[in-house]
């Protein structure tokens, strides 16, 4: 196996092809994400976003092509440096795993949480949790959290693994609009503070516009890429979504952020 190259990109995909049944979901995707960037991967339903994410996580094999994460092949060793924030957890109410226990699973010094005192676990977790506003829910069962609380806990869980690359899958699905804003502000501040690479897989164009420094529009292949203002225009979005999409406009007045809802016009 090749040694990782120190200045290699965080993610490098070359000509990735995946066929699921009769459909070729990825038809030769190539992209390169430099380290330390916050990028977004957008695309309509069925564009292959989830499949591409599953490939990055080693959950889906490529039929052709190559993926390298942080200079290495996708394998358990390289995945240890990846933080993953799934869309949601499908937890049974019967599962009583508390937030404290869930977070303790991620750290080596709290892996014996079953035998450890609560104070000991909290002391180990405190450093990572201080900015994330999850300490108030440590005693709560994971299954009882609201969408916004759960997303913060999932972020905390991934950060406890000290990742170099953070992958977020539709992170604000099921979160209300004020919650979405604060969530993306949080991700931005984490990105700036820790300098890690963040990849947002999202359909939320407004948030992408505000927070990502680079955007990839996917629809089986990378239709276009560039700075948000370059990609989020009608022509580029037409190429990705196949329909006319009026780009977002933000109106800032003090702290109040109002948005025009996205409009889809079939032509």
């Amino acid at each position: 196996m090749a040694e990782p190259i120190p200045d290699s990109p965080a993610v490098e995909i070359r000509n990735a092809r995946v066929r699921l049944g009769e459909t070729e979901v990825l038809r030769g995707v190539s992209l390169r994400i430099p380290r330390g960037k916050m990028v977004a991967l957008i695309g309509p339903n069925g564009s292959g976003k989830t499949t591409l994410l599953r490939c990055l996580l080693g959950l889906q094999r490529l039929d052709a092509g190559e993926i390298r994460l942080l200079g290495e092949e996708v394998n358990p060793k390289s995945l240890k440096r990846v933080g993953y924030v799934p869309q949601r957890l499908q937890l049974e109410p019967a599962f009583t795993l508390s937030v404290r226990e869930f977070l303790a699973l991620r750290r080596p010094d709290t892996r014996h949480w079953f035998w450890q005192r609560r104070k000991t676990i909290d002391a180990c977790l405190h450093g990572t949790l201080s900015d994330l506003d999850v300490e108030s829910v440590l005693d709560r069962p994971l299954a009882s959290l609201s969408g916004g609380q759960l997303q913060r806990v999932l972020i905390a869980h991934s950060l406890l693994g000290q990742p170099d690359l953070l992958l977020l899958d539709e992170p604000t699905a099921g979160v209300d609009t004020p919650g979405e804003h604060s969530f993306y502000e949080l991700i931005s501040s984490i990105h700036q503070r820790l300098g890690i690479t963040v990849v947002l897989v999202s359909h939320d164009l407004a948030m992408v516009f505000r927070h990502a420094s680079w955007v990839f529009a996917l629809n089986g292949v990378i239709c276009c890429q560039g700075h948000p203002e370059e990609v989020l225009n009608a022509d580029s979005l037409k190429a990705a979504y196949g329909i006319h999409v009026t780009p977002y406009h933000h109106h800032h007045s003090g702290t109040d952020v109002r948005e025009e809802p996205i409009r889809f016009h079939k032509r």
Partner: protein
Amino acid sequence: MEFLSEPFMQRALLVAIALGPICGFLGVFVTARRMAFFSDTISHAALTGVAAGFLAGFDEPTIPVLLYCSLVAVAMLWLRERTQLLNDTIMAVLLSSSVAGGVVLLSLQRNRWSELDKYLLGDILSVAWTDVWVAAAVSVVVMTGLLWKLNPLALLTAHEDLAHVAGIRVRHLNYAFVILLTVAVSLTIRVLGILLVTSLIVLPPAIARNLSHNLRQHILLSLLVGLIGAAGGVILSYPLDLPTGPTITLTLTALFILSTTGRILRREVAPVKPVT
């Protein structure tokens, strides 16, 4: 409590003490992963194991039961991975075909029909010292296995993909858990019988769930309830002159009703409002 000086009662109690807690521990993950029907399918598969064991000349068909139940358990996982069939469909097919196969095999040896009750409803009072040692050994193995793999199992139950990214070999762990469950269920059939064994897997964690606020409490209480239910049922059945297996299930059912009522009265369970 003089009856406890009877060797058959001592053996029964020891088997209950060995198997009750591990069923409770396994049950925490069985219920959280919606595998109660899975456990029921494994126990019903035992009927074919019993009948095949009789046909092969075994007096006590523990080994054929264990082998056939493991085969069914692995087949369930394999079919789930390789086909588009729903879990419930796979389990229903294997459950019904195992029961039918068992009855057909038993019909070939009518001289052993009379022993069927023992396997359908359990017969803990007839266990030998060998059964006690086997139950103790299995208890140690299952307990050690679950504690050793507690973190991966907890993460797997929360989210399979997260577990994968954390470096857990999800497929191996799924198979290992199912094998531990199969071994425990196969042996507990001697206590509760094919028809009732799932009660010792499902009721202790359900009772413990009503009283706990985190996974640690849930596991510890489920172990304790499994112990109390199994041992309590054995003890109660003697003076009340009741069949032991059903007494264990009814003891646990009474605890479940009490704990659920308590939880509702504490308003920890919100009633589900119908959509109008």
